[in-house]
């Protein structure tokens, strides 16, 4: 059984319908049973059509939880520890053939998998044969529910961005690995995702948390300087960065963590 989870935030109805249809058709093509859960992370008035309301679970709005907490809440609501969880961004859709291709990868419960983003791939390196990669993207991912629960899901400290890198590294720390499924495509529009200064600052704030958590103190300081500089140049208020009290902080950067490419956390292909 595959459980799909989608965190909605100001998502257009047309996008939701397209994504839902793509899930239905991809599952039909691959003969998978599935459930779909939507979590409303914004309070907009959105009337979902009956075809979706009657066949999916909807978790109503209780405030904007952020990306990771949103997925954690969906998994919590599933009341099962068996099967697989696929998290998808609401602004994309699955290729109808993606889940059929997924079978070829023979996913195992200890590992964390990402779908290939299309048409603009992430530049990080992956192994041509095994698909092994430094981390798996949260835009479209596959993980066993047992592993997700064992790891405690996404770290709620990250509101948005870098929570997927953190989860990937925790998978590696536990002895698992991350894989890219090169022919299982997820259409994702990233043409202008990084244009706004606010978005860039949110990313930097998350990178600081990630660096502090994984023992890269000097990197965290460098990113903080960049963030403050950005704020000053654009006359923006200071971004609050959570404190890491009571958390497991690594004193030495583990070998699987890569802080050499800022924001990419991996060797890149271009």
């Amino acid at each position: 059984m595959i459980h799909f989870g989608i965190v909605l935030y100001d998502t257009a109805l047309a996008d939701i319908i397209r994504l839902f249809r793509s899930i239905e058709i991809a599952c039909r093509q691959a003969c998978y049973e599935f459930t779909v859960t939507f979590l409303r992370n914004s309070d907009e008035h959105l009337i979902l059509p009956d075809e979706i309301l009657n066949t999916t679970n909807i978790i109503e709005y209780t405030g904007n939880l952020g990306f990771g907490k949103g997925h954690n809440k969906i998994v919590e609501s599933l009341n099962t520890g068996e099967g697989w969880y696929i998290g998808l961004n609401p602004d994309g859709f699955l290729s109808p053939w993606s889940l059929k291709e997924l079978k070829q990868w023979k996913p195992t419960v200890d590992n964390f998998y990402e779908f290939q983003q299309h048409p603009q791939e992430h530049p990080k390196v992956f192994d041509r044969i095994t698909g092994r990669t430094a981390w798996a993207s949260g835009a479209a991912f596959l993980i066993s529910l047992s592993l997700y629960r064992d790891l405690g899901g996404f770290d709620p400290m990250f509101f948005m961005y870098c929570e997927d890198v953190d989860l990937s590294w925790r998978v590696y720390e536990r002895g698992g690995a991350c894989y890219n499924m090169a022919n299982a495509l997820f259409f994702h529009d990233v043409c202008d995702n990084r244009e706004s200064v606010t978005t860039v600052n949110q990313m930097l704030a998350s990178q600081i948390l990630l660096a502090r958590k994984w023992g890269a103190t000097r990197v965290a300081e460098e990113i903080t300087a960049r963030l403050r500089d950005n704020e000053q140049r654009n006359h923006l208020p200071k971004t609050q960065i959570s404190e890491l009290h009571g958390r497991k902080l690594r004193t030495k950067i583990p070998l699987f963590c890569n802080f050499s490419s800022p924001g990419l956390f991996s060797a890149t292909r271009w």
Partner: protein
Amino acid sequence: MVSNQDDNTITYILRCHSVTCLPKLKTALLSVSGQRYPSLKALVAVQNLPTDEVGEITAAIDILRDVTGLDVDVTNFIFPEGGDYRGALLNRALETVRSRYVSFLDYDDVVYPNHAEILIRDLRADDHACLAASFGGCVQAFYDDLSNGAIYITSKAPFVRLPTVLSCIIENCFPIHSYVVDLTRLHYVPQFGESSPFLEDYVFLLDLLEHHCVSVVSAQTPVCEYRLNNDGSNTFSRGGRKSHNKHIGSADLRRVWAGIEQKKRTRCFRVPYDEILSHKTYETLSHQPLIRGVLVCYLAKRIRKRQGVAEAAKFLSDPKRYCRGLPTQRRSLLMRVFF
């Protein structure tokens, strides 16, 4: 071809030659179906395919139609057996288009989600009746084939650094999927070259630029990806300078080039005045043969020393492609700067 000015639909003509192209055609169609622009159609143009192969392509396309609602058809154009009709295929497909806008795409390339949105916006921003096409930026991606139709992109770079109308006339720098044509503004319909399997798209562009103005406002905004197999296997299907490198020895290609050069010398083209003023920006390293020669020799020597004669020969056969095909870690600083 009768196009309606009030119908703002764009039709993507996808060129596909055989059913073996289906895995890549699916990814090309997926990129079309995800366009932000709301009014879309797609026409998959195939040539001389048996009915069962057309059926296979149609079945795959039906599934995609169910997901995205993309209005897509497959048309099998019949030509005399035994020839290569890549230019004619596009011309025949173009004749069937009834929408206002049209764009072309090869089965192994992709368009980005902003493709139609940006290029049609540029066309609408200028209501000059002569403006018939808008050009966008293109990224060239070198890849290796993996199993099951997957690919591994080894590197990406802009197709050209400074795409302009002038550079397009001098040396074709806009692949077929980097522009959108407004059919209602064409007073002369350009034709893809049919006399040869090479440079058919260059013939079309020169025709277009001779009779119409074009917009290059977004020529540096990436709107599509031009995918090149590192083994050179899909070079043949390309127009422009990428194909002539591989077939430089071919007498047929030399004949086509000579025809194109002749056409360029005897015709007038519309070049924006701003580009004429700043024409020096077109100067690039490729036009400094001495420096380029020294650099290539130096790199070839280094590769021979480290990796042997065979690898050096591979580099010398096409230095730019070789360098861009290497993973980032294996590209030296010189390769990164100059190629």
